[in-house]
């Protein structure tokens, strides 16, 4: 039986703005399945985003949705979660939004280990503004602002999140749709900051500039480059050249969660 996505999508809000072949829709369906699996009460769930193609996702979903300013999703979401810790808080957005203009908020939300799930769609590019390079555009690749090839080194978002103190970090790709919801479920169930990086594709502004003749070619690349953590353990450094790891990359259940820590502050202030 076909999965019923309709009940999670706001009436009249489709079609979405994403281009044919864009992976964001695959991620959105994964998020819906994950929220259903976790039986999240949508009235008690805030979905917060910044600016960009990926950040338009919350508007389609029936929940408390907050489409903020460029880069600021984690900071707005921190305010929501602090003020009402009983709410489920989910962030979503792209690589430029989350790690360039929003990089400071991203790392500090990770450091605090505040209980939220951040689904970061990394498609290597600023799509909405027409294909400028992001902190995740591979070095040497072409973007509208790197006409001679990208001179910048990249961020490894998952490593950044682990280094900054997030306590659940996982990665998958838009070519692995079943793994998307499984990892988001784990992220939602995790008490603390969960980063789910989904390597995504932008055929319109990244693919066509970088010799991907079709969306299928882009999906094939995601499948070729993705190596599950378990499989990688049996591979040599040489074999892992040009690949990235997928699955649960890091998990720490010991580090205190931020709103729980602040509940202790309240107890102390009230003389308990």
């Amino acid at each position, binding site marked *: 039986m076909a999965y019923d996505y309709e009940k999670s999508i706001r009436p009249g809000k489709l079609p979405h703005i994403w281009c044919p072949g864009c992976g964001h829709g695959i991620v959105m369906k994964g998020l819906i399945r994950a929220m259903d699996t976790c039986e999240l009460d949508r*009235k008690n769930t805030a979905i917060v985003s910044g600016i960009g193609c990926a950040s338009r996702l919350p508007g389609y979903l029936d929940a408390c949705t907050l489409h903020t300013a460029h880069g600021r999703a984690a*900071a707005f979401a921190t305010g929501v979660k602090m*003020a009402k810790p009983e709410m489920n808080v989910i962030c979503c957005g792209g690589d430029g939004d989350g790690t360039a203009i929003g990089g400071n908020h991203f790392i500090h939300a990770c450091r605090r280990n505040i209980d939220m799930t951040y689904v970061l769609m990394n498609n290597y590019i600023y799509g909405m503004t027409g294909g400028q390079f992001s902190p995740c555009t591979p070095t040497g690749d072409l973007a509208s602002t790197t006409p001679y090839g990208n001179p910048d080194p990249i961020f490894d978002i998952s490593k950044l999140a682990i280094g900054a103190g997030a306590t659940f970090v996982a990665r998958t790709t838009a070519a692995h749709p079943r793994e998307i919801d499984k990892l988001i479920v784990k992220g939602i169930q995790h008490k603390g900051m969960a980063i789910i990086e989904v390597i995504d594709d932008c055929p319109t502004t990244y693919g066509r500039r970088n010799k991907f003749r079709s969306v299928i070619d882009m999906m094939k690349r995601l499948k070729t480059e993705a190596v599950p953590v378990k499989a990688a353990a049996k591979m040599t450094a040489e074999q892992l050249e040009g690949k990235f790891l997928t699955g649960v990359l890091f998990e720490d259940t010991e580090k205190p969660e931020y709103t729980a820590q602040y509940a202790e502050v309240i107890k102390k202030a009230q003389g308990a």
Partner: protein
Amino acid sequence: MAKKVALLQGNEACALGAVYAGAKFFGGYPITPSTEVAEVLSIELPKVGGKFIQMEDEIAAMASVIGASLTGSKSITATSGPGVSLKQELIGYACIAEVPCVIINVMRGGPSTGMPTGPGQSDVMQAMWGTHGDHAAIALVPDSCQEIFTETVRAFNLAEKYRMPVQVLFDEIVGHMRERIEFPEPGELEVIDREAPSVSPADYKPYDSTKGQVPPLADFGSEYKYHVTGLNKADDGFPTTKASLVDAEERRQIDKVMDNIADIESNEEYMTEDAEIVIWAYGSTSRSARYAVNELRKEGIKAGLFRPITLWPFPAKRTAELATQAKAIVVAEMNLGQMVLEVERVAKGNCVVVHEGRVDGDPINPGQIMDKVKEVL
């Protein structure tokens, strides 16, 4: 029963005023000369079950305040000029998304890092225009520690009533000055809470203004699910580029303030009934101006003081009336000419308007104002 009194700094009075008003969330970032507001709220808010968070930067502080406010918490941040510069984009967000919040700006010298420990009044135009796009602004300028307390309460009331950001600006002198404060009893000052929606969740539209210029705002995490965006939006909260809807919403958001100036306005006048010279001053400068009025009167000069407590929306009506009554208006402010531009605009040439400013980190003293008055005469 005798009222509870204390010797308090302006910044401390601000923090306690916020608690009186029912503030439950502070998101901030340390900056001189406003930091005591944060320090006191870090002590006081958890005592009442509220939340204090020191964010990673000024922008994040503003973002957290908007996020918290959407859950129904009365929310506040405190900063100084450089911080307001960083918050500007999100002040605009709070305007268009219509999210109540209070922003304290303890003014120092500028531009840029300027004089962090010196007083200034050079953010007054920023309070009106400091974000891109057309919008309305409410800004209050108390001149004493007691008034900082009451105006902070009023700032929350106006923010919740008009569903928008409200700024309270006081200069470093008032922020760091210590004065005797009488604490109002609970219930003595009006405290306005946010209006809850009366329609069912299915019928709720966060920007439906058919029943009034300020639509009720539902709390995130209640029975109501809705969408908030910084894009131009229709009454249902979803983005639109339809010209008629964009135009109507933009105008409503300005009209909700400009149509209610009588409710928002607050001024004090001192010896203006027969004044031939009106000193137009606010914040700590108005204290020097009041002294100058007394001294000038002793010398037989008919001087008076007009002191805006609500700076924005601009007190145009009363300023224009005074311009037809007086020979001259002397605008004294710790900047090189900001509010004087508004005074000139509404005076329409009916009287002489001159400016007395100072930006060297010293306050404007009474003698300086008296000299200017005599120069004009």
